[in-house]
């Protein structure tokens, strides 16, 4: 295996950086086309209702309206979906959640259209509303999609060993229930798409689209076009985190229908309010864990029952919950496991892919649980994990032996503990939380005298602020696993001046993937990164490589890019061997924009000279790379199989201060130790950790999308609070680069692991600070003080 690298692992400046710091980078809403019109959505006030009639009479003759489109204009499939076709492009039978759209108004003046949209009269027959996922499977609950006969979207069971025997062999049994809320992706750029009709050549769509190939499939189905007449181009994407998939497919389809009907370019752009109203969220989970363990800390049995609120549409629920079932026990070897994960329909906002994808929820539960076991047994949190954690050759809950990669769980744990002096701090903090909240004792009625307090009436700040340290560990399957077909393609074309074009079938979501790919090519062919031009991503120019999800861009896309560069390298070496008349054991080196033979200084060309030479000798300078993921298998009935072909490991330690009077938690430091395999771009990898941890802090202590009758209460950033520059203390990333046979030089994934651990680590730190366990995210002020959430009774602001 290659050990020395020229470019890989170094900090490299993003190839798209310059355009972004000068304001030249083009995001979807920055595109304008002659004759372009706007599409504005028509929604109802209902949460669950049958649509009787849509009456446009009040507006249809308004001069601002060019036309109106609704379900009747759709020539192909009226309902779409990535897994289950349950989501209408325009609602025509029922409203199942407040974000639903019944029609779209087209015209030149967007503001006017927004006013007119309110005047469409939709005749509705209200139906009983289902907001509580716990009631979704009750006999008397309304069915959200009656055609499926049940509100059950999916049920993943997993059975290993004999659960009753495991409990019988345990000395102790602990049972806990945990909940997590809806979370908004809160990408800074709201959704935007433009559809441009091309006549005989089909349709061209540009948008803030996370997965161009998925969008192409959906649009083609809806407008009834062959795939090759639907060209999807990804604009610069202003953040996605898994969130610009399903909804962007539907918006693309709406824009396409309207563009074909009017024969004009149609732009749809969402306000923040519309974005939060209609986009999908992270799944709220309710998780019940029952665990049996011995007095030595060995876990004998774990029974897990998880309910995920899928909301109004299926979306990615089956895959999100599948990751949960695979990873629900955490990275612990347990003989007897019984897990059920169910996803159900409700009238709430629908839920789908979001960075982490079914793992942050279960990690919050299982890592809180592990700490409680440690506290109960009087050992430290790192010890309980050492007793049960995965080692080389361990068998997972689904029966997979971990052997083809370095199982670095304990290594990341030890690194994090040493780095933070974990044990010492944890034990020290444990001593201090039995003190009660100090109260001021007033000798006399304070109002009767002046308001200046005397010295003994002050509270010592040390009594109010409690320090805590907590950790969490995880294992995470890389790429899609048994969730889907896993392969990716790449196109590399060297020009005869030595510069290059590069494109991969996965899509840049802002994470810096294109830069990582350029680094890979540079490493193999010695072309400087800045001489590689990354082509615009369109579905017309590269084979379908599946979705850019599951942190698969490095391992899969990187694998494909590496393959395309290696194909060329082999071809170039063969040519040079012949041209320079080399021996079998002569070594050709490609580095620093040069090609030479080791030890033969006279045989040396600059890469541009070489490219020109090869071109003149009729050598093809382009290649298509392909990287198929290894085969995996899964038995749905028992939850057995090798779920993912490889895994990554992480450990985060959070250090917090808790104000026991206000309930405020301040995160002083998060030490994030990850084994992402080989790091390709150090600058990018660091950015992934900082960003992921910060999102994790939001998940831990701020963020919650609350609903009133299915309608999100927090529709903009004044109410939906995400962390600002002031909200997170230090973040210390540390990489432990484990070896792996998969991915480019063993590079795996990092984007999601960084986020999934933080909330669990913080919750454990809070417990260490105050001696109380919290079971419900977010652990915000009221949770810390009252152990419940304060909610207004209606849509008004303020709380009761």
């Amino acid at each position, binding site marked *: 295996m290659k050990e020395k690298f020229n470019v890989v692992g170094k900090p490299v400046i993003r190839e798209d950086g310059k355009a972004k710091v000068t304001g030249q980078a083009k995001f979807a809403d920055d595109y304008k086309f002659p004759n372009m019109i706007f599409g504005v959505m028509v929604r109802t006030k209902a949460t669950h209702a049958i649509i009787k009639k849509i009456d446009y009479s009040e507006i249809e003759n308004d001069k601002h309206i060019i036309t109106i489109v609704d379900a009747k204009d759709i020539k192909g499939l009226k309902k779409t979906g990535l897994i289950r076709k349950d989501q209408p492009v325009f609602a025509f039978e029922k409203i199942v959640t407040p974000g639903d759209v019944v029609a779209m108004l087209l015209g030149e003046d967007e503001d006017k259209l927004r006013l007119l949209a309110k005047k469409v009269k939709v005749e509705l027959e209200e139906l009983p509303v289902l907001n509580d996922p716990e009631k979704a499977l009750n006999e008397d609950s309304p069915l959200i999609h009656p055609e499926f006969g049940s509100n059950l979207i999916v049920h993943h069971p997993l059975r290993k060993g004999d659960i009753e025997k495991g409990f019988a062999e345990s000395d102790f049994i602990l049972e806990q229930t945990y909940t997590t809320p809806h979370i908004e992706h809160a990408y800074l*750029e709201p959704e935007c798409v433009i559809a441009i009709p091309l006549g005989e050549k089909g349709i061209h769509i540009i948008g803030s689209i996370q997965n161009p190939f998925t969008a192409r499939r959906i649009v083609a189905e809806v407008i009834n076009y062959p795939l090759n007449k639907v060209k999807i181009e990804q604009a610069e994407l202003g953040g996605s985190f898994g969130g610009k998939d399903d909804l962007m497919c539907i918006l693309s389809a709406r824009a396409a229908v309207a563009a074909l009907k009017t024969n004009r370019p149609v732009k749809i752009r969402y306000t*923040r309010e519309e974005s939060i109203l209609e986009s999908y969220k992270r799944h709220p989970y309710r998780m019940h864990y029952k665990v049996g363990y011995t007095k030595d800390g060995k876990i004998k049995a774990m029974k897990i029952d998880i309910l995920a609120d899928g909301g109004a549409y299926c979306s990615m629920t089956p895959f999100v919950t599948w990751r949960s079932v695979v990873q629900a026990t955490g990275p612990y070897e347990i003989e007897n496991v019984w897990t059920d994960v169910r996803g159900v329909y409700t009238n709430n906002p629908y839920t789908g892919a979001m960075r982490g994808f079914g793992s942050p929820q279960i990690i919050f539960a299982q890592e809180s649980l592990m700490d409680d076991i440690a506290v109960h047994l009087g050992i430290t949190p790192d010890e309980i994990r050492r007793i049960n954690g995965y080692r080389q050759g361990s068998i997972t809950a689904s029966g997979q032996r971990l052997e083809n990669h370095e199982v670095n769980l304990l290594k990341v744990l030890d690194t994090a503990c040493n780095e933070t002096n974990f044990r010492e701090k944890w034990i020290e903090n444990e001593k201090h939380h039995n003190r009660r909240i100090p109260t001021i004792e007033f000798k006399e009625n304070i109002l009767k005298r002046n308001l200046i307090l005397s010295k003994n009436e002050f509270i010592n700040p040390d009594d109010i602020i409690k320090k805590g340290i907590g950790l969490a560990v995880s294992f995470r399957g890389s790429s899609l696993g048994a969730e889907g077909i896993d392969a990716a393609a790449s196109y590399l074309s060297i020009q005869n001046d030595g510069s290059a074009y590069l494109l991969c079938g996965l899509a840049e979501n802002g994470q810096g993937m294109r830069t990582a790919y350029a680094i890979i090519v540079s490493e193999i062919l010695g072309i400087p990164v800045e001489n590689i031009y990354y082509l615009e991503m369109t579905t017309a120019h590269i084979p379908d490589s599946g979705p850019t999800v599951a942190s698969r861009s490095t391992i899969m896309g990187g694998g494909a890019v590496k393959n395309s560069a290696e194909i060329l390298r082999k071809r170039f070496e063969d040519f040079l061997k012949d041209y320079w008349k080399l021996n079998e054991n002569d070594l050709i080196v490609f580095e620093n924009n040069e090609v030479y033979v080791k030890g033969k200084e006279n045989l040396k060309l600059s890469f541009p000279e070489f490219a020109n030479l090869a071109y003149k000798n009729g050598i093809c300078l382009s290649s298509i790379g392909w990287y198929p993921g290894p085969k995996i298998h899964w038995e749905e009935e028992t939850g057995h199989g090798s779920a993912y072909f490889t895994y990554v490991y992480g450990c985060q330690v959070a250090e917090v201060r808790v104000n026991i009077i206000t309930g405020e938690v301040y995160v002083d430091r998060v030490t994030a130790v990850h084994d992402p395999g080989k790091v390709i771009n150090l600058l990018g990898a660091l950015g992934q950790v900082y960003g992921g941890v910060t999102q994790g802090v939001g998940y831990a202590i701020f963020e919650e999308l609350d609903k009133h009758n299915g309608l999100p209460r927090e529709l903009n950033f004044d109410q939906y609070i995400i962390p600002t520059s002031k909200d997170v203390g230090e973040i210390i990333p540390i990489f432990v680069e484990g070896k792996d046979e998969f991915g480019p030089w063993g590079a795996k994934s990092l984007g999601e692991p960084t986020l999934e651990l933080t909330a669990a680590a913080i919750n454990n730190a809070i417990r260490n600070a105050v001696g109380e366990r919290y079971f419900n995210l977010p652990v915000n002020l009221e949770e810390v003080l009252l152990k419940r959430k304060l909610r207004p009774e209606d849509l008004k602001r303020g709380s009761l």
Partner: protein
Amino acid sequence: MKSKSIKKVKVKFKLNGKELELETKPNKRLLDLLRDDLNLTGTKEGCSIGECGACTVIMNGKAVNSCLVLAGEINNSEIITIEGIAQNGNLHPLQENFLKYGAVQCGFCTPGMILSAYALLRVNPEPDEETIKEAIAGNLCRCTGYKQIIEAIKHSTKITDG
């Protein structure tokens, strides 16, 4: 809305160093004036209510949310957008350092961030970390966790420009 009855007004202002005079409805947002009428799309819209900072521009030396400024208010003012801070094709040191320190991911918050930092450095060429955090607290970023942004701004201190 009765925007129809609102008469256009003439505004004169300096934009990225150039004098400009144009006719506009006074109730048009500065953000739309820049993006739609002047095609300066580097200024972004993320929330429309003054919460995210993506639309930040410099107005008379101060960072403002252009979604909250109306065209009628800009008469005789001096406005700088992200397109105006590179000088003669050379990146501003803030721009250089945003690249060098990895402060850019998706880039949607980047123009606003750079301009907030720019406004800070004009009045305080050597800010400490807390001051930097404070200056960009009105600029949301969902990608970077702010660390590399703060780092980039820190390394751009002591840089004054004309």
